[in-house]
């Protein structure tokens, strides 16, 4: 399952998503979700760091390129976002 988060990492949506993410799931952070790059201790990174992606266009718009680079997070462009939806039959958006 692929989880799309469009709200900030301390939002209700983010907290609910973290409880719903399973072992083989992936997460893509888009829109306000890219702010997770500022919070290295965010629950998502603790549990699932290998499978978390940030949408590059949104990272740049929000001024967070440095934060993503310094934390060695994985940004993907919109082609990469689509590739993730190809790999997972089910996609759930948390907003």
């Amino acid at each position, binding site marked *: *399952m692929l989880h799309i988060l469009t709200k900030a990492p301390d939002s*209700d*949506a983010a*907290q*609910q998503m973290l*409880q*719903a*993410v*399973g*072992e083989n*799931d992936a997460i893509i952070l888009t829109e306000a979700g890219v702010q997770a790059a500022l919070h290295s201790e965010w629950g998502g990174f603790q549990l699932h760091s290998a499978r978390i992606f940030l949408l590059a266009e949104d990272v740049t718009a929000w001024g967070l390129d440095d934060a993503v680079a310094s934390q060695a997070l994985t940004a993907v462009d919109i082609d990469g976002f689509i590739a993730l939806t190809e790999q997972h039959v*089910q996609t*759930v*958006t*948390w*907003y």
Partner: protein
Amino acid sequence: MTEPNGLLVIIRHAPYASNLLREGLDTALVAAAFGQPVDLLFLGQGIMALLHEQGNGAPGQKASRPTMDMLEMYDIERLWTSQEALQALELEPSQLLGSVEVLEAKRLPDFLKSYSQILNF
């Protein structure tokens, strides 16, 4: 919840605060009317729709309770929430509509995977 064509509608927004609860319930009712098996999962603020003390609607706004009461008529019989979501609102199961079943949050990932389709409101 193990039926191949099963739809899970997740409700995460409170009555009155936005129209998302109503629009989520409408989606569940239409799916059921089409003969699709439907369950509902209430998380976060969505749980406020399950309070059995829910009133007649804020003045001028339509109450959600009549729509909730229609669920059973459409054979939507399984309403779920999570233990942890209830605790966060400091609610006891006894304050909710009688038919609500409570999951542990750690079971949520497998619970979601048991549905072939999910819509998140």
